[in-house]
């Protein structure tokens, strides 16, 4: 179609003179790409100034001593790795991100399926209700969770007491506090998985299920041989994307526990904030943040590959 139109443009232009055409065309082309470049300039300035430059600057910063007067090479990284607190940070970051993402993906998948079962006209209101956790700014809803986890008069402890159980020190004991941070993240992030999976479910052609039914496939076989293969790409993209966001989470841990008890809930972001901004050791904080980079880059690479693959599939 597009070719057809450009041929027509050529046909209109011919009478004006064949000799003048190449010059005009190149001038237009040059002008077009110049305008295109200028339109992208603000974006490039923004990315170069506040993303790429800070990234390299972080690398440089992380190799300085605390007073930022001497170059210490990889000293900060080695120092961090030897520190027990930082080993806890690595463990907790991975535990937090992996557990939360798996739970979010599972719950999101289940809810998306339930939503897909009910008539389309009712879906809107249910979707609206289920998206509420995701709509409220995380920093604000985490405050409510903090209050619900309050040790003395907490919402959860009151329920436990009704069933004759003892108070639980929700945020006071390491492993319970870890579970609490994961719970809040799952609560916040599941709706996102739900809408992504719901959209993907809707895009699976109904004919595939009918064909599977005719071949005698049961519900489970349809799930494993039709739904999951068709959604594979979108599941991968969503999970990896969420892995990035969850891994780099700051709000939940900062508000709920600020890293405590005994630094057991610190993740990379909150620890970087504590040593970099609060204790004023900017190089060490920068080094801590940079530890996230390999994992983020790994996930980002596969997200990008999935998205490109997807674009090709849809274009084909």
């Amino acid at each position, binding site marked *: 179609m597009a070719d057809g139109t450009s041929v027509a443009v050529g046909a209109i232009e011919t009478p004006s003179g064949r000799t003048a055409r190449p010059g005009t065309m190149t001038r237009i082309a040059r002008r077009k790409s110049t305008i295109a470049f200028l*339109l992208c300039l603000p974006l*490039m300035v923004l*990315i170069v100034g506040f993303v790429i430059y800070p990234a390299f600057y972080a690398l440089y910063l992380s190799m300085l001593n605390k007073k930022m007067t001497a170059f210490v090479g990889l000293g900060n990284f080695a120092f961090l790795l030897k520190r027990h607190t930082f080993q806890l940070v690595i463990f907790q970051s991975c535990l937090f991100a992996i557990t939360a993402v798996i739970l979010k993906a599972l719950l999101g998948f289940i809810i998306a399926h339930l939503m897909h079962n009910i008539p389309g006209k009712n879906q809107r209101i249910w979707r609206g209700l289920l998206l509420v956790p995701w709509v409220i700014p995380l920093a604000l809803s985490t*405050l409510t969770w903090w209050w619900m986890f309050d040790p003395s008069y907490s919402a959860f402890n009151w329920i436990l007491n009704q069933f004759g159980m003892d108070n639980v020190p929700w945020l006071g004991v390491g492993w319970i506090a870890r579970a609490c941070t994961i719970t809040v993240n799952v*609560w916040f992030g599941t709706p996102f998985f739900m809408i992504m999976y719901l959209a993907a479910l809707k895009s699976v052609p109904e004919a595939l299920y009918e064909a599977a039914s005719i071949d005698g496939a049961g519900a489970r076989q349809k799930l494993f041989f039709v739904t999951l293969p068709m959604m594979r790409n979108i599941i991968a993209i969503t999970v990896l994307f969420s892995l990035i966001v969850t891994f780099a989470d*700051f709000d939940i841990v900062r508000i709920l526990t600020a890293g405590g008890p005994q630094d057991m809930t610190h993740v990379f972001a909150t620890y970087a904030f504590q040593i970099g901004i609060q204790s004023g050791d900017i190089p060490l*904080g920068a080094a801590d943040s940079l530890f996230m980079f390999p994992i983020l880059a790994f996930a980002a690479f596969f997200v990008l590959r999935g998205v490109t693959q997807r674009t090709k599939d849809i274009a084909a």
Partner: protein
Amino acid sequence: MSAQLDTRAVPAVGSSAASARAAVHRTSLHRQRQWALWGSYAALAVFVVMFLMPPFYTLMTSLKSSAEISAQTGSPWLVKHPTLENFWYLITYPNFQTYYLNSVIITVLTVAVSMVISILAAFSLARMGFWGSNVLSTGVFLTYLIPPSLLFIPLFQIVGWMHLINSVWALVLLYPTLAVPFCTWIMIGYFSSIPRELDEAALIDGAGYLQILTKIFIPVAMPGIIAATIFAFTVAWGQFLYPLAYLYTSNQMVLTVGIISDLIRGDVFQWGKIMAACLLASLPPIVIYAFLMDYYVAGLTAGATKG
């Protein structure tokens, strides 16, 4: 979806025996489907209760007086003597007004700046192209994947050089870096879906590129623009790390951090007021999503399913 299936199952069958068998089969299938439907509703209801528990608790606490909270008797999930005193306190509290105003100013500016930058860039990347524009598109997507917590420490230094520590302008400068990549990405998707015939026709009629953008692309891609605007709004309204790191006095503070730093003094937690403040601060996003959720979900899922 199920209505479609039902009508498809209905068509009449030939012989009487076969039709009777089919009828039995159909009613049992129908019953099965009915059970599955009610099961789905029940399970969804359980999830809704779980998901809405914290917001409900926020609302209940916000309606309690300080005395009722500190009495610690009866169910904390219910309010015995509802009062609006927490809300009244906040509305008349100058600091809270400042936080709200700062949040609004920063958000409006961020949205405006982000949308201008991303619409111009997306138009260029989707339609015009130049040497290296494909690399830039990929770069934009990768930038979107960079979380704020990766670069906030070098940015702290950079903000310091610009003498913008403890200034709302630092946020106006930095928030677009979080919003623009995804907004651009959504807009590239929407702009690419506009048929090329439209802009070629306009070019023949002598329209310039900016005219094509303002007269054709922006009106046609309005759903995408709404989705991108909501995204920019969400980012700017809810960001917590940057204001916590870069702002410290109450005249420059925004809602997300101000509520915590102002209403929690040492060991004194004024939970009624904190919860009321959370509710007031969540109001703008809730209202916006209530009206424009469909656009946002469409933009978000299109960004993922279409790439």
